């Protein structure tokens, strides 16, 4: 059931509202329940906004909201938004509804970077070391994939996908190789990063991710109309005067950078980049000018919702967000696969 295009701005506003609601839900519920008004008061008082200044908040509430839940929620929103928008862009670039940011080696590169950082011991000396290694790993993997796929200034989509698979396997082997030489403690550290999560995320992570993610999403939104043309195929796009390689490479690198940033602050979180753009395309149609903001908002909503749900589903333990997104995302993905045989979205 696709919404009429005239209503797309209403739908985007609705998604924005839903994000606020999910955000409030995330701040409110957990091992310590904080009333919405108090949670809001913490935020407004900390930001010195002329709102809810009269509400008395306890030190405990302040600590829980400001230092624990808010940064995690914001990281969740940034990561979800980045994965959703990048997923939509990747699916557009490859004209393939099953494309995912992980497909061109981003996740494998990040994992190799992270494991090297742990093995070298830099991960324990600085909190930024592992994200930096993961980021470099992803960018190197994407560069290698593109380099392998490029022929005479052209990047055939199928070759790019196959090169991505090959690079992913190669880096997977490197990661496994390094893992076999690591001690128990380091293995635990790697596993903790591998199962993507938002726990122990702090304001530093928000600052780290905000620039590249928001910047990347803005660039993607600016290029959304061009992506509509790119989706029609290389020849068709060239025939209407688009410098295809330039745009394809540009979009590929922006989405790779955005995804790499999100992977490096939260570890691997699957299915957001795959499922959310699909869902949004089904609801709002294929126009990337609507699809990209909707996927960014949808990704943020889905991730924060999964994170909040993971916290309350079996207290006092927390189910990590990477597990929740896969648990909720994979049945939906399988349903899509079944349905797609007849679908017009292929």
């Amino acid at each position: 059931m696709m919404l009429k295009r005239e209503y797309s701005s209403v739908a985007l506003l609705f998604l924005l509202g839903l994000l606020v609601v999910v955000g409030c839900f995330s701040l409110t519920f957990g091992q310590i329940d904080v009333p919405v008004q108090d949670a809001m008061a913490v935020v407004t008082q900390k930001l010195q906004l002329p709102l809810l200044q009269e509400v008395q908040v306890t030190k405990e509430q302040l600590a829980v909201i400001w230092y624990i839940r808010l940064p995690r929620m914001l990281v969740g929103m940034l990561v979800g938004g980045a994965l959703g928008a990048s997923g939509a862009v990747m699916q557009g670039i490859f004209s393939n509804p099953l494309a995912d940011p992980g497909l061109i080696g981003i996740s494998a590169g990040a994992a190799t970077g992270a494991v090297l950082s742990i093995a070298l011991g830099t991960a324990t000396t600085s909190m930024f070391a592992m994200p930096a290694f993961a980021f470099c790993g992803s960018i190197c993997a994407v560069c290698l994939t593109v380099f392998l796929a490029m022929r005479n200034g052209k990047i055939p989509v199928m070759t790019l996908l196959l090169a991505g698979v090959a690079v992913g396997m190669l880096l997977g082997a490197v990661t496994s190789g390094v893992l076999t030489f690591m001690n128990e403690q380091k293995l635990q550290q790697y596993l903790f990063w591998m199962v993507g999560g938002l726990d122990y995320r702090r304001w530093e992570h928000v600052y780290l991710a905000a620039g590249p993610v928001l910047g990347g999403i803005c660039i993607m939104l600016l290029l959304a109309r061009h992506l509509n043309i790119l989706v029609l195929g290389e020849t068709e796009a060239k025939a209407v005067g688009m410098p295809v390689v330039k745009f394809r490479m540009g979009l590929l690198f922006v989405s790779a950078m955005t995804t790499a940033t999100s992977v490096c602050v939260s570890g691997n979180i699957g299915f957001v980049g795959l499922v959310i753009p699909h869902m949004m395309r089904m609801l709002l149609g294929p126009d990337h000018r609507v699809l990209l903001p909707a996927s960014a908002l949808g990704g943020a909503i889905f991730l924060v919702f999964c994170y909040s749900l993971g916290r309350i589903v079996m207290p006092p333990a927390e189910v990590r967000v990477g597990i929740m997104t896969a648990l909720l995302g994979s049945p939906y993905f399988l349903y899509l696969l079944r349905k797609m045989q007849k679908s017009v979205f292929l």
Partner: protein
Amino acid sequence: MNNVVDISNLDIGYGSRCVIRNVNFSLKQGEMVGIIGCNGAGKSTLLKTIRGLLPKQRGVVKYMGKSLEEYDDKELATKVSYLQQHVEVGFGYTGKDIVMAGRYPYMKWWQRESKADEDLALNCMSYTGTIDLADRPVTEVSGGQKQRILIAKVLAQQTPIIFLDEPTTGLDMVYQEEIFRFAKALAAKGKTILMVVHELNLAAKYCQRILLLGEGSLLADGKPQEVFTEALLSRAYKADIQVERNPLNQNLEISTRISQEDREKEAALLDKIC
């Protein structure tokens, strides 16, 4: 009249393999020209190379006196539009989305389509009889309807030169002739049409000029009655071709001739099979 397209000493092919050597021809404004030749003769390769979609091996291609290399992508797209052989449109894009793509070369990178662009796209759809399909996903329309939507896109591109690569492949007789009629009407309006054609009878009926490819070169270039000769066609198609004039409408009719010997061979084989 001035030439709008000038091709000289053009060699085309893939990589180091040359498909056609030393092609020379020019197109004038308002001409409707068909490229014919057997399968694998290099018709589509020629069209794509001239449009700049494939690299040429040698030679010069000029549009309005300016060589292909001097045009940037967008400027070239305002001069020449190109309808490709097979277009696969996924993701549920509608007819209008496709036609609006024709306005791309006229927009700066940050601009959105204006109301005027939208009106033009809808007028093009009305002309090709596809206005009812404006909001339908292209994956849900028939082959003929899709082709007319793509022609509307080419029209929305508002170029003086139009290249059509086998625009009638896979369409039924009615749609085939309709597309030739569209092309003829556009040529009458001053647009230059260069099209790859498989249906020789329709090419003979509608095209003013024919380029015949065969034996790795441009075998003939002239009016249909000059090119559609049994000798030339038989050379190009490596088969015994028969050309007759229909006494009722004076149209040329082209068919293959099978020798008595071949017919007997086939009959003997059929007896074995059936």
